[in-house]
């Protein structure tokens, strides 16, 4: 089966094939254990175990002491997703809005500054585009996950 996950370098495509109880990908093979963990056999024959949990669209994976957050891109969805990274990472207050609707911005531009849990957090454009709308003004309180700005990645 074919899946896409988001990464800082762009979408990653992963295709796993199933034969009997065993899934394979390149030299790796994986079986699902009775308790929901994964048993992964590497190309060198080494065995690892994986814990997985899905929260929203994100698969959390723990294996070999490392923890990963892999956001799944639903088939057919465009890569703009619902607001990209332009959502409030946690409840907080808008300290500053650095762009206005209609403004052309390039990837990496700071669009907004939030204060959350007594720390400043910068909302940065993930790609080039045009600011279509700014949904909050300085001083506004925002809930976690709300869209702060809409960016048209044209």
């Amino acid at each position, binding site marked *: *089966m074919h*899946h896409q*996950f988001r990464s800082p370098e762009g979408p*990653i495509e*992963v*295709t*796993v094939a*199933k034969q009997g109880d065993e*899934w394979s*990908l*390149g030299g*790796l093979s*994986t079986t*699902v254990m009775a308790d*929901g963990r*994964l048993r*992964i056999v*590497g190309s060198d024959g080494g065995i*690892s175990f*994986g*814990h*997985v*949990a*899905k*929260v929203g669209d994100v*698969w*959390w*994976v*723990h*294996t*070999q*002491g*490392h*923890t*990963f*957050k*892999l956001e*799944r891109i639903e088939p057919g969805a465009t890569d703009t997703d619902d607001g990209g990274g332009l959502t409030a*990472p*946690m*409840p907080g207050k808008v300290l500053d809005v650095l762009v206005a609707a209609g403004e052309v911005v390039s990837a990496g531009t700071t669009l907004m500054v939030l204060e*959350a*849990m007594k*720390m400043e*957090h910068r909302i940065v454009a993930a790609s080039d585009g045009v600011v279509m709308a700014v949904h909050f003004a300085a001083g506004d309180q925002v809930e*976690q996950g709300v869209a702060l700005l809409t960016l048209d990645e044209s």
Partner: protein
Amino acid sequence: MVRKVLVANRGEIACRILRACNEAGLPSVAIYAENDASSMFIELADEAVLLTGDTIGETYLDQEQILAIAKSTGADAIHPGFGFLSERADFARAVGNAGLQWVGPSPEAIEQMGDKMTARITMRAAGVPVIPGEEIEHEDEADALAAIEAASHRVGYPLLLKASSGGGGKGMRAVHAPEDLIESAKGARREAIAAFGDGRVYLERLLTGSKHVEIQVLADRHGRTIHLGERECSVQRRHQKVFEEAPCATMTSELREAMGQAAVAAAEAVDYEGAGTVEFLLAPTGEFFFLEMNTRIQVEHPVTELVTGVDLVREQLRIAAGEPMSCGPLMMRGHAIEVRLYAEDAANNFLPAIGPLAVFRPPEGPGVRLDTGVREGDEVTPNYDPMLAKLIVWAPSRHEALQRMRRALDEFVVLGTTTNIRFLRELCDEHEVITGATDTTTIDRIWPNGWQPTVPRAVEDMALMAAAVAESAGLHRKQSMASTGGQGPPSPFETIGRRFP
């Protein structure tokens, strides 16, 4: 006598104290705010009483409400834990005035140690070495600035300006050159007035390359004040400790004895009672200087418990009840390390994180202790401190303790909320940590531009495959079924054909 203990705290430390009460056969009372209604500590208490109010000030800091609950539940002692009201002399006094036993030192001792300038003067008089510096008593801005300027020539550069009422880095400024002095002094005073309503500051010589070493003390009403050796807590990020150990890797028995005696003298100077910690800076020269005394149980107390075999919270309860402490002469055995697990993004300037604890699977096995206030299924919210747990290991040697900590951190699975587990794990591989040559600037020196995880490509590939297999196999549907219980296994009471109750 102490017959029933009210624990005026929440989370991990409330769990620690409530378990100690349980073991001692003492009935316990928990207090909780509405947003803690399903928290773990409530389950460990014999009784739990809801605090009315929304903010921390209206709940865990509301002295009158807490005293009223003590009265209505028949509790005769209050254990404050750490944070919240633990170092509030006015609360300790109110507890005493209400005819209840405060589990901690007298209000006078809290006051004498809480005001940093008073503490320095008291310590100097008791013969405890303090960091070279001068106290400035002037309240008036112009007078204070003139006195600071005059004192700076005697103290020398670089120097530190610190607020007398300060803590947590507030009202503190490092000054490296005379031309920055007045501006920094104004800033420190401004911050101190805003945070504590007290602008008094003092000067201290800035001792670079020092270790943060603290001595645990215990004092009872039967004339005994002892020290329980040291903890080293040099490894800090943003002035908060993350990695603590006992003993200190570079300690000698002569130095331990000297620091221990100084800590005992410090405690005796304020007629201390209960458990307390005297913090010192240990300079590369081997000289040590009094920093401050924490008049409460500390977050990192478990490392001392593991190497000395003393149950500090149990001793606190014993001492508060007027009994003599139960520990004999100091015996230290092996090595203990504690790391603090925070819900935070270590790769993004340690920004606090929130989310569900979809999976929370702590390590097990020999020499591993976990002190936590959360369990799987809980939600990490921005309401309180983001510390999730303290992971503590003990082993016969420091080398083996580090090996055990690496193993334990690799086993620790937390999914659904970002944590600093990987940061702590990589910290255990750093040269300075391995050799024990840590000081208070270690983290900034190792990662001057912030920490980023080092992830082997092969492990990343495995994770991607795991996510793809989990999605393909529909594991998320099975997980949500198990959590809602709707399609779960049938109830045993149905299968055996009877009803309960």
